[in-house]
């Protein structure tokens, strides 16, 4: 069922037991603060390659929690392990785009060279191979993480070279980038990962005037900043599309001791990678936008939640923050304005898509498993540690800085009704020019496909798996909040691709990423995945089409958060737009006997065990 599960505990693979003093020191580095549990456990994982039961006891003692609470966190995140991992862990990006780009061959080369299967750790503790869902590099698939760096556009030759270099003891960073040590963090990031900016628009990827927005903002009263952002028509760019100004207004409403501004850089929707490019090329703009938000709502503290897959950008971002502190753009009395204090830290995730949901993101920052919070109260009223918290996407904050620079009207006049400004699209899959495109809202899908060299597409997944799978007859639909809403993912599939293979992959993704808190999402998605598997094997009854719709409706209506409310979309939108794909595969009963029950398969094990044939179902039994 699950390609990503950890192997069962067994050999220690030569991993050193974590010494008590080392663990105590790690906890102490975070002030023994249980809210920093994710950082503590990440550091322990990095240092000792696993989080053993004994280690969890020590962490529990130091942070004042119980062992089971620590274990709850350690077992929630994919990048934390309760069995020893290799000194080098290679995580293959298992996205459908990577699969279509030849992932299986790349994996085979590594397995062959390192002598282990994916999911295993070598006996000497040198290597672990794993699959991981989309790592935000679909425009340069197949890709993989090697410890904290990434390698992209893998070919068979490159894979062989990497495996050989690793076996020869070369460090991952030197394999990913030649001359790693002599490069700046920004250079390291851009040499490891191509930006693939295919179209720079007026707002984000074109020329920007540094700090112009912040300078304008400090001249305004906080309420006037919120007014301007609201007047610009800016809506959240992460996918949900909530009006940014309204969110801020709620957060600023009540008198409270503390407020927070969080940037959601947990870009996990498969096929989405535009924030990766902003984090690389526009980090100052993003932090500028956060600083403006802090000014507007009265927050002094902030945080960037960077997905664990983007850990290769950490030092780049740290440098940006350090630089801004040095220039008086973060910290006390920003730009000399007395009392305007704002600073922030980076929280690295550890492999959990659900942490892109704002409540789950906050839980994760509080050192808890990444479970969404009960709403109401909403994060803008009671978020991080119970205080009002604004959580916005990377792109949203970048837009804010530009809006404050160029004015609300300038932004409002771009795009279309209800969808103002520009949008970054992450384009990948079967097209000539995958990459990032900044375009005004309102383009038709057809127009976008022409720009990216994807005119021959058979299907396009707009908004990632939680969005819509669009067929050719609907390419005229427009990319706006009111028609085809998207956080930016545009995944192009040629007419040769198997729709149900894509759907099955997306359902397995949601099964892997469901937090498990609520029944419909935890269980219902597994049922959907199994039902799609039945279709693919030709074992579905005609009624199973209604069953898919019916079960999907229950999951959507009863789920606790956005994950379950959208996870059936790959099925529902393909049922709608590609109905023949399903109906062609079903097998009606004959004389009310199910044609989908395969008795030959069911007795095969027994036939082999008993070393005889069936006197009922083998016609040649008497021979």
């Amino acid at each position, binding site marked *: 069922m699950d390609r990503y599960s950890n192997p069962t505990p067994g050999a220690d693979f030569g991993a050193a037991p974590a010494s008590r003093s080392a663990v105590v020191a790690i906890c102490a580095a975070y002030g023994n603060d249980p809210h920093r549990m994710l950082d503590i456990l990440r550091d322990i994982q990095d240092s000792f390659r696993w989080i053993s039961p004994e280690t969890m006891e020590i962490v529990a003692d130091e942070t004042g929690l119980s062992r089971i609470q620590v274990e709850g966190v350690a077992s929630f995140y994919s990048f934390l392990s309760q069995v020893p991992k290799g000194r080098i862990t290679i995580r293959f990006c298992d996205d459908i785009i990577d699969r279509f780009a030849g992932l299986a061959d790349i994996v085979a080369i590594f397995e062959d060279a390192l002598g282990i299967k994916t999911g295993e750790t070598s006996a000497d503790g040198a290597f672990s191979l794993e699959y991981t869902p989309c790592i935000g590099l679909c425009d340069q698939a197949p890709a993989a993480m090697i410890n904290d760096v990434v390698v992209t556009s893998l070919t068979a030759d490159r894979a062989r070279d990497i495996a050989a270099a690793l076996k020869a003891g070369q460090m991952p960073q030197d394999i990913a980038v030649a001359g790693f040590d002599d490069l700046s963090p920004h250079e390291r990031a851009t040499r490891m990962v191509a930006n693939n900016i295919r179209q720079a628009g007026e707002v984000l990827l074109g020329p920007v005037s540094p700090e112009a927005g912040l300078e304008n903002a400090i001249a305004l009263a906080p309420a006037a900043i919120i007014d301007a952002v609201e007047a610009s028509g800016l809506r959240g760019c992460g996918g949900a599309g909530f009006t940014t100004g309204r969110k801020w207004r709620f957060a600023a409403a009540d008198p409270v001791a503390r407020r927070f501004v969080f940037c959601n850089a947990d870009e996990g929707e498969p096929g989405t990678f535009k924030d990766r490019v902003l984090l690389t090329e526009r980090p100052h703009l993003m932090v500028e936008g956060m600083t403006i938000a802090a000014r507007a709502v009265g927050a002094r503290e902030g945080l960037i939640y960077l997905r664990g897959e983007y850990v290769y950008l950490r030092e780049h971002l740290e440098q940006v923050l350090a630089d801004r502190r040095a220039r008086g753009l973060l910290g006390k009395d920003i730009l000399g304005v007395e009392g305007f204090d704002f600073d922030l830290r980076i929280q690295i995730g550890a492999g959990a898509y659900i942490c892109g949901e704002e409540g789950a993101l906050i839980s994760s920052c509080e050192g808890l498993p990444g479970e969404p919070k009960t709403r109401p109260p909403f994060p803008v009223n009671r978020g991080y540690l119970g205080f009002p918290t604004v959580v916005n996407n990377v792109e949203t904050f970048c837009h804010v800085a530009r809006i404050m620079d160029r004015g609300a009207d300038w932004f409002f006049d771009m795009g279309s009704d209800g969808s103002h400004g520009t949008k970054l699209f992450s384009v990948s899959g079967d097209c000539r020019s995958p990459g990032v495109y900044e375009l005004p809202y309102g383009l038709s899908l057809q127009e976008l496909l022409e720009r990216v060299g994807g005119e021959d597409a058979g299907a396009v997944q707009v908004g990632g798996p939680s969005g819509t799978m669009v067929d050719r007859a609907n390419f005229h639909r427009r990319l706006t909040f009111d028609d085809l809403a998207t956080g930016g993912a545009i995944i192009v599939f040629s007419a040769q691709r198997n729709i149900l293979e894509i759907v099955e992959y997306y359902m397995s993704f949601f099964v892997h990423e469901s937090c498990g808190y609520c029944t419909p999402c935890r269980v219902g998605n597994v049922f959907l995945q199994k039902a799609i598997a039945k279709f693919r094997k030709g074992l579905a009854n005609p009624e199973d089409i209604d069953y898919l719709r019916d079960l999907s409706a229950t999951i959507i209506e009863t789920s606790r958060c956005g994950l379950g409310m959208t996870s059936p979309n790959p099925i529902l939108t393909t049922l709608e737009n590609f109905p023949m794909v399903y109906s062609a595969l079903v097998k009606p009963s004959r004389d*009310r006997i199910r044609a989908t029950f395969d*008795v030959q398969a*069911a007795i095969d*094990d*027994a036939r082999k065990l008993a070393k005889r044939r069936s006197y*009922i*179902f083998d016609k040649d039994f008497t021979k």
Partner: protein
Amino acid sequence: MSELEKARIATVSLAGCFGCHMAILDIDERLIELMKLVEFDRSPLTDMKTFTRRCDIGIIEGGCCNEENVHVLRDFRRNCDVLIALGQCAIMGGLPAMRNAIMHSDAPLRECLEEAYITGDYIRNTTHQIPNDPALPLLLDEVYPCSDVVEIDYQIPGCAPSGDIIFNTLSSLLAGRFHGFARENIKFD
């Protein structure tokens, strides 16, 4: 009422314990009332091994754990207008389906048989062999609910179902006015 107008009922016990058939007898004195309306065809209760003619109702106890169960169930589907799954085993596999969930190895069926006949703590099997007479039907890889193999029209819950729910369901079906069970009659044990 002449014999010819009586509804014909066939019954069979597949992978079950025969408890559901015993439960049919729990209808008690109402059996006399029921027998005015129906006649039993193929059934362990009549000891008839084959259908004498097409039946109105087929009652299935037990799920499918071996190839013969599949064969018989299909035969019932071909020969009956309405099929009723009687009791938890027929509905969802029941206790025999526990074997679906206690498999730890890559060869679950072998593991199951070895545990049952050779390695189990309480086994006294002097032959140290898994029975393999050619007359024994081959086991299925899993125990299947009846509805996986054929289309089932009605299912009566219980382990075993009470005489009340069996009688009420049969008599309302025969009268052509079955509209679900009385809530107090619904039991899974």
